[in-house]
Every structure is written in C-alpha cells, then in structure tokens.
C-alpha cells in the first residue's frame, strides 16, 4: 500500500510519562483514517508529532518519501499537511473573515507582500467567504472570533483548515463541543472532503460517529498502537473490545 504519511517507532515522553509509545503506522493516500481511543490515550499528542508542534524523543515522521521529523510546523504546512486543533485555536481579536482569509493567503503563497493593500487581493476574500458558507458561518463573518459561541469557534477552526487546501488534513475531534444539531452538517463537510480525493486523518472520541466514514481506523491506548484495520476488523478485535469499546458506554 502506498502511504503518503508514515511514522516509524514514533515516541515522545514528558518527564517519565510516555504519551506516545513506539507507534509505527502509515496513512494511505486519498483515504480517511480515523484515530480512536479513550481520553488521554495520546491522540492529540500523536497529531502534534505529525504536524511538528512537538518533536519526538525517538522515531521518525515521513511525508511522501522525505523525512520531516525535524521540520518546523510552518514548513510542514507548506509541504501540504494542514491541521485543526481540538482546543480552539484561532485569532481572537480578528474577525471571522480575517481568520479564514489569513489561511487562504498562506495557501495562495502571498507571504511577503508589503506594498499593496490587502483588499487588492479580492479573490482571497471571496474564497474565504465561500469557505465560511461551507461551514455555515458566513453570517458571522464580521464578528470578532472571540465573540463566537463555542460551536461556532469549532466551525471556524475547520474553515481555517479547509482554507489551507492541503493534501493531508489532520482533524482533531472536529465536532467536540458542538451542539447535536450542528454535528451532521460538519460530518457532511468531511464527507465532501473525502470525495475530493484527499488524505484525511480524523481523531474522534465517539467511535459510532466515524465508523461509516472511515476507510480504516487505528486505536491508540496508553500511547500505544493497540490495533488497526478496517472498521469491521476493529469492531471484531478482541483487544479493542476489552480495552476500549467494552468500556465505551460508561466512558462517553
């Protein structure tokens, strides 16, 4: 199988605590692979290693055949790995539109232009509006990001990721904290992305939600890769049953 993104023996520890422990796995091109596991399993930490926010204590990250273990987060974004954050991470005192426009601007490669007025780049703004429409946030485009509700901030977070238009998308619990009626629309956005032939890596705490969306799943438990495979295989896997799915109902 051809992997666009791979990890080899990826490990990181904080003091004595090993948060991600020897994870070797790969993410097939143009597929959606979900990462599941209980709270504190190391899912977000694993993302931080993929996107460069954290440097591993051991192991490697490879993207399209190059070792990117020591590349900075911004370099990885420019290579084509975009991510969204579980804990909302936006520009609070900028408008919703500007938050997204900045992502569009980065994607368009306009990094060091200091002579023209930013409004000259009408296309960027139009594109930002389109993306906001997609996540149903366009009516709030003039609001400061900090004045959004929690669920709206989550949508903005996703909009910023979409704006990056990257080959690989890392989504960290995109629907966490959204109200129930908002969730299906976001799932549809993700399904739409899948049809655009992109590689998507999706962290989700609630397994039922991603089963029919995922081409494959991997289960993290105590920082270790417990199992991976197709949704069916994961459901039938005994170790997963014991460690995670069995306790699912009281855990979530």
């Amino acid at each position: 199988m051809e992997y666009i993104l791979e990890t080899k023996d990826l490990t990181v520890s904080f003091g004595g605590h090993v948060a991600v422990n020897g994870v070797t796995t790969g993410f097939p091109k143009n597929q959606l692979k979900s990462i599941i596991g209980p709270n504190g399993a190391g899912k977000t930490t694993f993302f931080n290693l993929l996107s460069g926010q954290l440097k591993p204590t051991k192991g490697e990250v490879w993207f399209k055949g190059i070792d990117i273990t020591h590349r900075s987060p911004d370099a990885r974004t420019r290579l084509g790995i975009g991510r969204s954050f579980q804990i909302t991470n936006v520009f609070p005192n900028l408008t919703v539109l500007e938050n997204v426009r900045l992502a569009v601007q980065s994607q368009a490669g306009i990094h060091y232009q200091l002579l023209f007025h930013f409004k000259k780049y009408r296309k960027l703004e139009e594109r930002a509006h389109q993306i906001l429409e997609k996540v149903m946030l366009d009516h709030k485009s003039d609001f400061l990001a900090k004045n959004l509700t929690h669920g709206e901030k989550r949508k903005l977070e996703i909009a910023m990721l979409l704006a990056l238009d990257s080959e690989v998308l890392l989504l960290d619990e995109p629907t966490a904290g959204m109200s129930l009626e908002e969730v299906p629309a976001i799932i549809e956005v993700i399904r739409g992305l899948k049809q655009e032939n992109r590689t998507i890596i999706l962290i989700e705490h609630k397994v039922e939600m991603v089963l029919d969306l995922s081409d494959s799943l991997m289960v993290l438990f105590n920082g270790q890769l417990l199992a991976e495979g197709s949704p069916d295989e994961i459901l039938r896997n005994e170790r997963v049953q014991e460690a995670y799915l069995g306790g699912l109902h009281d855990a979530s």
Partner: protein
Amino acid sequence: MIRKLTAPPIWYGIIAAILLILPLVNDSRSTLILMTQIFIFAVFAMSYDLLLGYTGIISFGHAMFFGLGAYTVGIWMNRQDESLFSLLMAILVTVILCALLGYVLGVVTLRLKSHFYAMLTLAVAGLFQVGAEKWRSLTMGNDGFTFSIPEWLMDRQLFYYIAFFFMVGGFLLLRRFTLSPLGRILQAIRENEQRAESLGYRVLHYKVISNIVAGIVAGLAGLMYGLALRFVNTGVFGVDITLDGLLMTIIGGVGTLVGSIIGAALIQIAHDWLTDLAQVHWLFERWIILFGIIYILAVRFFPQGIVGSIQRLADRWKERKM
C-alpha cells in the same frame, strides 16, 4: 482592532489643515518647538506601536534606534560639511545602521520568550548608552556635542513643516504597511503565534521584518530629533525615551497608529506643562514618578487607550443598530 478607524477622512483633512495654518497664525518659538517635538515623537511612537500593537513584541530598548539616528546625523554633520548632500548621506547611513541593528538583534534574540526579549533589548540599549559615553573621541562622552546643519533647516517654521510632513509620511507608510498582506500576518502573530505558524507562516521572519521596519522608522525619528536640537547627548539612548514611546502608544491605543499620534501630543504637552509647574513644586519635575502613576492608571482603567476605546464604543453602537 481589525476594524479600520471609524473617523471619516474629513476629520483628518480638518486637523491637517489646522496644523498647516498654525505656524502662520501663531509663530511663537515655543509653540513651534513643542509641535515639532510632537510630530517627531509621534513617528517614534508609531514605530513602537508597530512592534507592540501590531506584532505583539515588547521592547524596552526601542530608544537604541532613536539614539542611533540622532548620533548618526550629529557625527556625520560634524565630520562632513553641512550641505544637503551630507544630510542625505546621514539619512542613508541611519537607515542602513538601523536596518542592520534591527536585523541582527531580531535574528539573535526574537527566538526568545517575549519577556526575555524585553529584558535583552533593555540591556542592549543600555550598552549603546554606555558606548556613547565611553567612546569619547567620537561622541564627546556624556556631555554630548552640538553640530551644524544646513542653514535653511534652521528656520523653525520650515522645520515645523518638514516635521509635519515627516509625520504624515510616516503615518501613511506605516498604515499601508500594516494593511498589506504582510502586515495582516503581523497581527495574526500578535494574536496567536503558534496558530500563525501552523498556517504556514515563518513567524521569526515576520518578527524580524517588523523589528527592522520599526527600527528604521525610530532611527529616522531620532535623526529628526537631532536635527531639531542640533545637539545630541547620551540621553537619546535613555530608558525614558523608550518609556515615553511606550506610554504614548498605550494612552493613544495600541494597534492604532492614529492613537500613537494622539498619545504623543498628550504626553509632550504634559511634559511641557509639568516643566513649567516644576517652579511650583519639585515633584512635577519628577516625570518618571508621574509616568508610573499614569501608566498604572492607563493599564488598569483604560487598557485600550483613547482610540481603542472610541472604536469599541462605535462598534457597540453599530451592533446595537443591527
């Protein structure tokens, strides 16, 4: 903060017209000098605002650029003849030196956490001050020196206009800079550095660019200051210059260039006024004490400054209408 100032351009026009007419109706020496100082410090404060208000960089040593500009023009005019050409060369040298200093300082120290950076800038500015004191052959030490400038520049009224257009030019350039795509990235960095990084922006590059631009502008303000006084001493590297810039920016409203201009006017007028009051009571001479009090009050009760608060009121009003 992202919203543009709500004041209609007509206001800018009226104020500019008043300032243009002022020297014709009131040509008292002290007024012209005060206004000239306001214009020059407004540019210095705007350059500080670029760092603090737009990029989120706290510097306690911004006077190093100001002093570098003042000393450059002084030393240059002293060693060369006092022609326009020498002056233009002094400007060029100031720009080059400040750009270099901004670059080196930025690359070496802007990786640091912000409070370390603030401390380091304080130390570097202190080094410049000590250097200016010790390198007597070049700087005449602590007492400083006077120097000559082109004859026509000594006309107070003409210099008033030059300083005025210096401020207007500085404002327009910095405004364009902050509204450019790159300027927008600076604001993103101020808001959330890590997020700007994960959008693919090389944060350090932008901080260094901001530092260089702020450094050049502050250096030119220092050069104008030197020209206005025709005298320079180690005070131009002093902490109080930086603190003045800081206070002007905060009182006027960080992240609003206009605020820096208003802040500069208020602080300079207060300075002037307190110097007069010093004859009444010695306490008024202790500018630094009053600075501390104003600073605490401003940060406590008025964190967005004058322009920031006005903008917020206007925003609220607009939202209520919606």
